[in-house]
């Protein structure tokens, strides 16, 4: 996407109000339904709409201004406009008033008018909406699922890897049949994703809290860590701490050509059973470098 400020023709310092105004001014001019024959207007309208979407999110705008993210982002599912239906034959709303006077004087138009009023409705069938709940790992790795339809029959749905909550898949021609002779509607499948007990997702990255023992953290170790594609050996560096984040490169979510990473956050766990030896050691332990983990907190408050 181009620079959203440029697309809307506003300055970087524009207020939310100014952005909205600029968007509305352009939207009125470019709305596809008010320019049914103009493909360029439709393209421009989509740019303007996504620039407005982008800048209306204060957090996203802040991150864009700070150079943290680029303007590529939220691709919305293709939206059908009224003109897409109105242009099909059998539109019962359209009327002939704008050229009916030609028919009075021209036999060609008179013919045309007669034929058009006789024409049957070749209306497209209805789109049908389904919801499909999938597992966290299915969303990340992709999956094939079947939906059994209430009216009988089934739909094969192939879920692309990296799909996101709320995304809609469109299966062309799998909706309701046309009441006349038109084409069938589409099946729209809205995806919702069940949460995972251990993993969470952050865009194309995966996050995991991994418990480690005091010994593993203090002395370093190799431990098994779960990733969406199975277990890998993770090297815990000597002297790790709760909150230490380790990166497993390329173990995140596949998005287009790029794969995100998995970030493993360590949690140092004390033994759950009493350990008299450890207790007596700690009681007699005099650290070589005494430390106060709360010092930063006390200085700030």
């Amino acid at each position: 996407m181009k620079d959203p400020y440029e697309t809307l023709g506003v300055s970087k310092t524009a207020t939310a109000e100014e952005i909205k105004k600029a968007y509305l001014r352009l939207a009125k001019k470019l709305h596809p339904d008010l320019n049914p024959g103009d493909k360029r207007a439709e393209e421009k309208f989509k740019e303007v709409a996504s620039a407005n979407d982008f800048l209306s999110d204060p957090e996203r705008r802040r991150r864009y201004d700070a150079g943290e993210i680029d303007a590529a982002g939220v691709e919305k599912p293709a939206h059908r406009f009224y003109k897409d239906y109105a242009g099909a034959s059998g539109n019962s709303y359209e009327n002939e008033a704008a050229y009916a006077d030609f028919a009075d004087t021209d036999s060609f138009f008179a013919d045309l008018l007669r034929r058009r009023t006789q024409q049957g409705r070749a209306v497209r069938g209805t789109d049908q909406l389904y919801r499909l709940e999938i597992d966290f790992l299915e969303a990340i790795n992709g999956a094939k699922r079947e939906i059994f339809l209430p009216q009988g029959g089934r739909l094969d749905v192939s879920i692309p890897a990296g799909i996101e909550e709320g995304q809609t898949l469109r299966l062309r021609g799998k909706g309701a049949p046309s009441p006349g002779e038109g084409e069938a509607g589409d099946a729209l499948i809205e995806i919702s994703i069940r949460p995972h007990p251990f993993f969470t997702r952050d865009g194309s990255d995966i996050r995991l809290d991994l418990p480690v023992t005091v010994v593993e953290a203090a002395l370093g170790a190799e431990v098994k860590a779960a990733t969406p594609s199975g277990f890998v050996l993770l090297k815990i560096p000597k002297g790790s701490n709760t909150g230490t984040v380790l990166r497993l490169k390329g173990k995140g979510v596949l998005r287009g050509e790029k794969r995100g990473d998995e970030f493993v956050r360590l949690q140092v766990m004390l033994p759950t059973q009493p350990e008299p030896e450890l207790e007596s050691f700690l009681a007699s332990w005099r650290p070589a470098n005494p430390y106060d983990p709360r010092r930063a907190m006390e200085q700030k408050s």
Partner: protein
Amino acid sequence: MIGEQEFLHRVQVDRSTLTVWIEEAWLAPVERDGERVFEEIDLARARLIVDLRQNMGVNDPGVGVILHLLDQLHGLRSAMGELLGTIHAKPAEREP
């Protein structure tokens, strides 16, 4: 075919608003067994009405004017499409 409940949900309007739109002849759903049923075109048209009223600041009389002109525009467009089709079809018809 879309039932009224689903239609209201997908357009995000309430029933009384929908009734006004139908009375104004902005929408013309079919009645079947005493229930209003809608097609995709009605849904898309309703979304255009929402766009005009909520996002583009058009007031209700304005919506009526715009829809009326749009319906004429689409009538013209399809007449023109048919006309072009007829012109291009002519030479082929002459072939033996």
